[in-house]
């Protein structure tokens, strides 16, 4: 496949692997966090760990859109889906996330009209095809997906579609990163910055990481060579005593981001004072809701949702997994009570979740050498 295979070339991978070896200080243990779940997925899918010495450890971060949705939000979604006349639409991964009383998938089996969509525009199309029904779109994701939700809402407004609304659970990437860096649980050496989010926000918002916390950042793409190259960039900064934001994903990420997308987001959304994250608790100014101008398209205003905070199941350690404090296999229920077919936590549901990636791809003894 042209424009894809180039980034999965085994020879280039070996060359970068050699470069990493040459940059590693013998005996030192490096912990590098990949912020984004897309990276976690790629790392396991391609077996990137096999090209790293054992003392370069990749720590999985909080950037998985499905993983960070708290149980109460799922319950709210299910309550909306059961409202008379509602067609509830969401992305596929979201359907399997357990709420306190089952998942959206189970709610569908119980009779609610819940449909999987690939884009918010699909949801808008369903609304236009079903003028006598209320269509609700469950919007999730970081700044990566927020602009497409914003554009869809603008289009709904422009086309005068009145039976469409949005249950907005979009979140932003910087506040959880800051919360994580403030946490005493973790000592990291650097960050692989989230490539998709950065296509929208740019690389500049991550400057606080080197400036305030003294950690290097390399914003990276999602192919295995991208990830290895980002690790080289981080290790080189460490070796040379530099500390800055570098952009490995220049082919897609402009340093200043996508100003048009940011404008649309600013028009349609506003920051919530605080938003609850799965396992991380409430984080100030970390979630988006519809702005006053688009308030009439806000499903949470149009319908009443319970909005009850539901505590995570006791056994579930998704929070610590999302913070990189524990590895997936260190969770008490990993792989026994919590599996992809019967997930307890969100990290086992999404393909971008660290637990699902480790369970599906990484569940074997991987011998590696320490340098």
């Amino acid at each position, binding site marked *: *496949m042209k424009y*894809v295979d180039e980034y*999965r*070339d*085994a020879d280039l*991978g*070996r060359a970068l692997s050699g470069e990493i070896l040459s940059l590693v200080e*013998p*005996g*030192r*243990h490096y*912990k590098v966090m990949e912020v984004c779940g897309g990276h976690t997925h790629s790392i*396991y*899918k*391609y*077996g*990137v*760990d*096999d*090209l790293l010495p*054992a*003392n370069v450890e990749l720590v999985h971060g909080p950037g998985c859109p499905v993983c960070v949705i708290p149980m109460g939000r799922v319950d709210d979604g299910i309550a909306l889906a059961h409202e008379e006349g509602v067609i509830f639409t969401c992305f596929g991964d979201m359907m*399997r996330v357990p709420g306190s009383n089952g998942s959206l*998938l189970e709610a569908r*089996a119980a009779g609610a009209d819940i449909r999987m969509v*690939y884009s918010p525009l699909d949801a808008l199309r369903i609304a236009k095809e079903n003028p006598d029904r209320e269509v609700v779109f469950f919007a999730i994701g970081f700044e990566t997906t927020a602009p497409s939700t914003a554009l869809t809402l603008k289009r709904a407004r422009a086309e005068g579609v009145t039976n469409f609304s949005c249950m907005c659970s979009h979140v932003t990437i910087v506040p959880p990163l800051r919360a994580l860096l403030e946490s*005493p*649980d*973790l*000592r990291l050496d650097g960050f692989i910055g989230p490539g998709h989010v950065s296509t929208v926000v740019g690389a500049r918002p991550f400057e606080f990481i080197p400036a305030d916390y003294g950690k290097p950042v390399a914003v990276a793409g999602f192919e*295995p060579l991208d990830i290895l190259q980002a690790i080289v960039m981080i290790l080189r900064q460490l070796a040379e005593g530099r500390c800055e934001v570098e952009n490995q994903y220049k082919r897609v990420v402009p340093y200043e981001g996508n100003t048009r997308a940011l404008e649309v987001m600013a028009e349609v959304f506003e920051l919530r004072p605080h938003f609850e994250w799965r396992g991380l608790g409430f984080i100030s100014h970390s979630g988006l809701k519809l702005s006053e101008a688009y308030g009439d398209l806000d499903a949470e205003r149009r319908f009443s949702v319970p909005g009850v905070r539901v505590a995570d199941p006791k056994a579930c*350690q998704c*929070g*610590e997994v999302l913070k990189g*404090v*524990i*590895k997936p*296999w*260190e969770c*008490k229920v*990993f*792989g*026994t009570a919590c599996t*992809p*077919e019967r997930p307890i936590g969100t990290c086992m549901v999404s*393909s971008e979740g660290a637990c699902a990636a480790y*369970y*599906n*791809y*990484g*569940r*074997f*003894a*991987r*011998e*590696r*050498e*320490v*340098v």
Partner: protein
Amino acid sequence: MTSDRVTSDAQSASGYQRPDAAGPGQDAGQDAPRSTPAISDREQKILGIIETARGKRAKFRDEKINMAHGAGGKATQTLIEAVFVPAFGSETLGEMGDAGIVEIKGLQLAITTDSYVVKPLRFPGGSIGELAVNGTVNDLAVSGARPVALTLSLVLEEGLPAEDLRREVEAIAAAAQDAGIEIVAGDTKVVERGHADGMYVCTTGLGRRDPRAELSPSAVRPGDRILLSGSIGEHGTAIMLARGEFELDAEIESDTRSLWPAVDALLESAGSHLRCMRDATRGGVASVLNEIARSSAVAIVVRERDVPVQPAVAGAAEILGIDPMYVANEGKMLVFVAPEAAEDALRALKAVPGCEDAAEIGEVRTEPPGMVLVQTSFGGRRVMDQLVGDPLPRIC
């Protein structure tokens, strides 16, 4: 000990403490560069616990049937192992082959049955009628049985255009003729509009076990080579695109065909060196390999680079975020063969029309038992697990 160990050993928020935080195995690795520490003892132990949990007979705990129960992956397997096999108590059924072998006065017969509910009824490269013959013929063929006779049961929806029925009957007749199988009995039912999607087709196949065949899913042993009879993922991808749910267009045709000629050629060239054959339908190559790894308690290692995939299929899979290893085929099989016969078997296979792209894709090993590992084209390794959930219902 490096400082990061100290911080990560700290008791975490939930009060969960790492029991062997200062385990000697890990420290030895860190203090002695270039030694060969595997993963930590504790991770190894937990992996062991997980495999034990997976090895247990699955329990069927769902309250309602959902689409995953029909997807050919984990949920289907659980349903069969936990509900059907124990209820019927048949030893033959318990072997979980593609066809059951029945012996009558020294004559070994293979019998198999299948229902076809594919949507849409026609798709590039085939239709429900053709599928209903080839699918059942292939279950006989990979069981080492020469297809002999077929029964045909039709469930038709009120309002189905007669033209559609006639067309499928012709497709069934043509496919049966190609496969050399005779349709000897049949049944027709009609249900009210809305109770069946156009038509469903059920076929039962009877075959005569070939004397050259000594096949069993549990006969696979370490060292065996794994052959694949051609490129994968075409049927599932063709159906997916034919439904028009994705705005994607590609020239991909279903691979539906009878596998008996390929099986015949393999039996001729490798005979008793053939351990096991399976057609890789729902759940794809990945599901078959997992079933074999489990039933034979062996490890399977697949070289991703050697698995043939047409560029259009690889492209569609890339865009849709699916792995062709899990996508259904309707004319491809996996062959486990003793190493000494692998080369001849592959040559024989490649000479069969439709199998020109056949390849040796991996081998059977001892460790870790029950697991399928992939050597990725990129140079890493990963697990290739059973299919969970149903990415694409009603493909056959």
